[in-house]
């Protein structure tokens, strides 16, 4: 049996490579908030309270552009609704926990942490404390996100824009799914999602982020039916 701290540590190690994109993204988020004219405390509050990169940027851009609070909140909700899918997947590994532990771990469910946890826990179904892995990934991402947004707030965007580090974001997510390209059924679902996102990109409230996965999951459902 692997000890709890070892599982936690494995989770930390699994998300470390993603810091290549998370840290620059955090710095950019902090810097954008200040550039848009928000009080540094408010900018930091979005990292602590909302804790979701893309949604924080959109939220601040909308409010500074004169959009109503309702529009800003709706956009955050739509963008972050993808966590419902992560939760549905991870619930398999968290279902035995007490309610209070579930409530705490939930705060730390993030894209990269979900992806790495899902990958590892699926191959280690009999692990006795799987939630420590989820927590290891989530807490690491949380710390790096807080520190990098704070440095962006204080130092401004000290990363030269010419470097185009925004490109690290699609690369991080590519790294997450690249291994599944070996499975044709997954490739099919990926292509449906990708093309759907290009077509739906201009849908209101950035809803392509949740609509495309829904379209892709429906496609997966139909595919599974036809297979049988």
């Amino acid at each position, binding site marked *: 049996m692997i000890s709890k701290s070892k599982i936690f540590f494995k989770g930390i190690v699994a998300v470390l*490579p993603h810091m*290549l*994109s998370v840290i620059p993204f955090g710095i950019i988020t902090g810097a954008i908030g200040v550039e848009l004219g928000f009080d540094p405390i408010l900018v930091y*509050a*979005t990292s602590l*309270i*909302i*804790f*979701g990169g893309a*949604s924080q940027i959109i*939220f601040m851009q909308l*409010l500074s552009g004169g959009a109503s*609070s309702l529009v*800003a*909140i709706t956009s*955050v909700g739509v963008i972050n*609704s993808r*966590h*419902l*899918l*992560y*939760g549905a997947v991870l*619930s398999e590994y*968290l*279902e035995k926990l007490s309610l209070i532990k*579930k409530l705490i771990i*939930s*705060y730390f469910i993030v894209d990269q942490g979900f*992806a790495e946890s*899902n990958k590892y826990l699926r191959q280690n179904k009999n692990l006795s404390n799987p939630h420590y892995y989820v927590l290891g990934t989530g807490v690491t991402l949380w710390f790096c996100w807080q520190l990098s947004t704070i440095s962006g707030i204080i130092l401004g965007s000290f990363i030269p824009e*010419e*470097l*185009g580090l925004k*490109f690290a*974001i*699609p*690369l*991080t*997510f*590519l*790294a997450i*799914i*690249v*291994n599944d*390209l070996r499975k044709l059924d*997954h490739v099919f*679902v*990926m292509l449906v*999602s*990708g093309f*759907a*996102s*290009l077509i739906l990109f201009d849908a209101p409230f950035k809803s*392509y*982020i949740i609509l495309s*996965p*829904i379209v*892709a*999951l429906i496609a997966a*459902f139909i595919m599974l039916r036809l297979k049988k």
Partner: protein
Amino acid sequence: MTWLSIIISGIVTYFSRMAMVALIDREMLGTKVKEVLNYVPAAVFPAIIFPGVFFNDFGLFVEITDPKIYGAIVALVIGFYSRSVIATIVSGLLSYWFIIFIILK
């Protein structure tokens, strides 16, 4: 006003993270739903990748010669064979920088 918006956005976001973990009983999900859930990574992440590669900052399609496309292809190939997260990201960034700073300069 902004504070209130941040707090409500935070509650909404937290709810999205917590709802399926804490409020839903897994027994409620049928086998079919569970099977489909295997495809969640394949269904979610391309919707972030594709626009990030094929659209520019203004939401317009990039040219077929855009360095991002070639960076993504390199990352795809290296990632596929190396199975390494770090190799995927680094190879994509380095090839992207090689194109914008050396070839296009």
